[in-house]
């Protein structure tokens, strides 16, 4: 049975966050042939182009400046207005920090069953079945979202984005959300992350992470060069962030970020459980470590035992060569 589905696009300065494009693929599964509309609040012209060519059947754009503050009490009324106009039964978002904030608020405001970090989605007559990692990626839970409405936030890298189409879907402007009384609180400042050039750690499809095995901050460029050659994001163990070699935003693990890329390369990281819970659900794991008994090798798919100071330059050169020759 087909149904209408609405995808909430999350803008970033250069367009859409990649997981929003992947959300369109998940929405198509849920729609079973029904319409898949998009809603974009406060995005750049690049985001409108990317979204309207990204596999949706129509796009609603709200352009009020207040959307830039990314707060639920601004976004939820606008999303609900779009859901109503499109008669949607399912709302799909990217399971980013803000996507999860929206999912929680929408569950109550729209009276819907909701799930985040979703990696699989199957529509049935008894409801939407979804799967997500739980307990630090050590197990998978499958839920049934029953009832007439569902909100699903999908985990980055779990669904491939649909191909861009040459033709843009029709774009309509979403009239400003119903006037809200002056909302309490305001954003008073912003500290940009230290210029990390590469992709965002949480949603990157490849992550190269370095640990204490690098010995000193001035050696960390070895990890960064491999990451650059692969187009990967850079991560670190807590030993590295605690020592101040890299800011806390690089930390992967229980008290840092959870990542689940297609490929995770751990360099000079021993594999303490607090690190593993943040990266264990990666699809393919490569470990480079001089100690064959390091716990990281127990969960790695490919292990290279040896000195990272010799291995990394060789690997970076080989990756550059392989990518240059296609």
């Amino acid at each position, binding site marked *: 049975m087909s149904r209408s589905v609405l995808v909430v696009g999350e803008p970033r300065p250069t367009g859409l966050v990649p997981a929003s494009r992947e959300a369109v693929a998940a929405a198509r599964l849920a729609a079973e042939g029904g319409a898949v509309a998009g809603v974009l609040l406060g995005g750049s012209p690049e985001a409108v182009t990317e979204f309207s060519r990204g596999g949706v059947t129509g796009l609603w754009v709200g352009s009020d400046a207040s959307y830039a503050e990314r707060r639920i009490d601004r976004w939820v009324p606008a999303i609900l207005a779009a859901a109503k106009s499109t008669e949607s039964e399912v709302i799909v978002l990217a399971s980013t920090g803000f996507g999860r904030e929206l999912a929680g608020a929408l569950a109550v405001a729209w009276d819907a069953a909701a799930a985040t970090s979703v990696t699989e989605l199957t529509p049935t007559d008894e409801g939407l079945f979804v799967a997500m990692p739980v307990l630090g990626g050590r197990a998978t839970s499958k839920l049934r979202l029953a009832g007439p409405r569902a909100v699903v936030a999908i985990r980055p890298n779990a669904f491939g984005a649909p191909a861009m189409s040459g033709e843009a879907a029709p774009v309509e402007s979403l009239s400003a959300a119903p006037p809200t009384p002056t909302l309490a609180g305001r954003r008073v400042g912003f500290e940009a992350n230290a210029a990390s050039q590469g992709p965002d750690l949480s949603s990157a499809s490849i992550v190269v992470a370095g640990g204490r095995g690098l010995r000193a901050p001035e050696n960390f460029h070895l990890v960064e060069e491999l990451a650059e050659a692969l187009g990967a994001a850079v991560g670190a163990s807590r030993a590295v962030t605690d020592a101040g070699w890299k800011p806390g935003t690089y930390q992967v693990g229980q008290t840092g970020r959870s990542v689940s890329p297609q490929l995770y390369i751990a360099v000079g990281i021993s594999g303490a459980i607090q690190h593993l819970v943040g990266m264990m659900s990666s699809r393919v794991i490569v470990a480079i470590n001089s100690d064959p008994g390091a716990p990281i090798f127990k969960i*790695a798919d490919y292990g290279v035992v040896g000195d990272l100071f010799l291995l990394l330059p060789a690997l970076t050169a080989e990756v550059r060569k392989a990518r240059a020759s296609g």
Partner: protein
Amino acid sequence: MEIVVCVKPVPDAETKLRPAPDGRTLDLEGAKFVLAGYDESAVEQALLLKDAVPGSTVRVVSFGPPGRTEEVLRAALALGCDTATLVESPPLAHSADVRSVARALAAAVKKLPHDLVLVGKQSGDSEAGMLPTALAQALGHPGFNGAVELKFDPTQKLFTFGRASEAGLERWECPGPVVLGLQQAGNDPRTAKLQNILKSRRATLDKVSLAELPTLDVAGATAEAFQLPPPRTGAKWIEYKTPEEAATKLVRLLKEEAKVFP
């Protein structure tokens, strides 16, 4: 300042990972339930604010089956919370419905004075991260998740906090009442003194009964299966004589076997 902290009982780290006999959830037979992770940080943050602003009160609230819920409420009392409220739940066996939890907690929080409602950023078991904003929506307050460096400015009566985004750290200020999901407290969580643990055992808990709650659709989202990943078989070792040989072999495997080479 009036602070309410909402916490969830979660199975402790020793709990053996295996599916329950019906295969739908983690097997909780014999599990010990604790105050842990982000919830522990939320309690710590509430107590730090109380220390900083004399005359403040910290009230802890939890929703769930009586036995385990009482455990975590008493743990929070032992740490220094002033009162504890147990919100009675209908049988939740397979429920995974965040709406119900938010509505039940909101019904209890509404009865308590509150300038600030603190919640952990996500629970230690399901890790969904939806409750803070679901609760804000149910209460009709502003709500934000992932707050760090939370402080209170008593002269302006404003809460100030950081909120991480993909691009950096946003700085916010907000008057109460506000709901915040906490990413990190300013301190490592304190431990309870033995004498306070003993006292918390005898403390009376306030109760909100099922009859006082709105109708809850606990079957709106249900757990159907709990699965452990197939055990990883251990690494495939790359044998090599020179670093260059290791690099060539690894790149070939990533390309041809794992198919993850960009």
